[in-house]
């Protein structure tokens, strides 16, 4: 707790967080998913949530992305009009609109985030159509542009993702999420299950997009190398609790908590 007090950031009043999580707790019966989590995310910032399987990082991600109602605590989001709203007090229609316009969610398994039986173009165009775009030519043009940005060639636009490799599917999922210009993107192990070379390409792509678009990203990963490359700040979780939080490179190079020291010392060196 002394760390939290010392690490006070003093910024101007107009510099406001995009997402504020306070006292977030989710229990499954008597089992704890995550407990008393506080965190803030600012525009343009990448926050990594790391921990081993069962540490509660996915529960936390689901709670703060409006996909799983917390047992207690609040998740507040700054809407485009500047107002701070509690996600779980929004109307369902507002919440779902937020999910498909101002937010993105990149699943570990692309099949969970894509429509596997419609074309790549329609996968990217769906969000545009959902917010009322009714011009086929324009939708297709935007979809083509986005496929290019995620390095999928334009002649694959009418192919279904079933015909794509794992890396391509993941890039398609990213394009599908970013097409509406979201301000906050959640990512659940986005490079998990990919070959190392494919992973590197995806990381490079993500870094570029995050920087170009000024996205805020909350990324869950068990891979500390991914966290180091992508994130500015990091949260370490264990048994549903936040063990340590702070600047990513400091947490990795000068870990304070016993658990973080163990985690960092367990990384395989190449």
């Amino acid at each position, binding site marked *: 707790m002394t760390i939290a007090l010392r690490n006070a*950031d003093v*910024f101007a009043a107009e510099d406001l967080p995009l997402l504020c999580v306070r006292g977030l707790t989710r229990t499954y019966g008597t089992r704890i998913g995550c407990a008393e989590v506080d965190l803030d995310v600012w525009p343009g*910032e990448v926050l990594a949530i790391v921990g081993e399987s069962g540490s509660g990082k996915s529960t936390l991600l689901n709670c703060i992305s409006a996909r799983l109602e917390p047992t207690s605590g609040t998740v507040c989001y700054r809407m485009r009009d500047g107002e701070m709203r509690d996600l779980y007090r929004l109307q369902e229609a507002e919440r779902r609109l937020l999910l498909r316009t101002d937010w993105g969610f990149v699943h570990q398994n692309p099949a969970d985030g894509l429509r596997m039986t419609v074309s790549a173009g329609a996968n990217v165009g769906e969000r545009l159509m959902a917010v009322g775009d009714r011009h086929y030519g324009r939708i297709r043009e935007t979809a083509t542009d986005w496929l290019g940005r995620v390095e999928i060639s334009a002649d694959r636009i009418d192919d279904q993702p079933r015909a794509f490799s794992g890396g391509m599917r993941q890039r398609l999922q990213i394009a599908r999420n970013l097409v509406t210009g979201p301000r906050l993107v959640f990512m659940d192990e986005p490079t998990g299950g990919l070959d190392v070379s494919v992973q590197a390409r995806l990381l490079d792509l993500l870094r570029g997009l995050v920087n170009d678009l000024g996205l805020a990203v909350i990324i869950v990963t068990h891979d500390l190398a991914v966290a180091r490359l992508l994130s500015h700040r990091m949260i370490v979780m264990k048994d549903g609790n936040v063990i340590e939080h702070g600047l990513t490179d400091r947490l990795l190079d000068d870990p304070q908590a016993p658990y973080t020291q163990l985690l960092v010392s367990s990384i395989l060196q190449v």
Partner: protein
Amino acid sequence: MQTPALTVTGLGKTFTMHLRGGIQLPVVANTRFALHAGTCTVLGGPSGAGKSSVLKMLYGNYGTSAGRILVSHRGREVDLAAAGPRTILELRRETIGYVSQFLRVVPRIGALDIVAEPLVERGADRVEAARRAGELLSRVNLPERLWELPPATFSGGEQQRVNIARGFITDHPILLLDEPTASLDAANRDVVVEMIAEKKRAGVALLGIFHDTEIRNAVADVTIDVTGFSPARKAA
């Protein structure tokens, strides 16, 4: 005399090794010095004396156990030792640059883009950033045929030069150098010495660690012996 760019007072660092029964490893204690614009300060002392730890604390990469690190930032003094992550990121963006010992980047990016990246991240025009990157890579004699290639397969010296170009591309008023010349040949060492001299002329406050005595003598205006901050001596 003008306000120092950076002032260190009472700075201490102790590692607690929880994996070894929580033993305490004091590295430095009561460190104090100041960095001035247009001056290159060099940290001296034998290996293990804590030079690198001091440098890393100044960049926020290591936490501090005691003391203050006052940085002149946007016309006021900010205590980096007590600053939160976002303040540190802002200091790194605008005020404190760092040239590390090793190049650590995303595997797939070409050398030119790696060098240009710090400028692009600060919102510079891509074409202009690439032009500046090219200038610096020429300067450190990296053959142009390597510019588009990812440095993972380069030799140690080549990687080091990419790293230096990347570190020198920005206009930070404070620049920290963590043995950037370790694996360079004589010709390239001279280039780096000249580049440091240019930074000095531009009013940058530099703090460096150099193993090479020749370079150290060539660039150092002030030398601080870190053994003076040894916690053991203090205890004795």
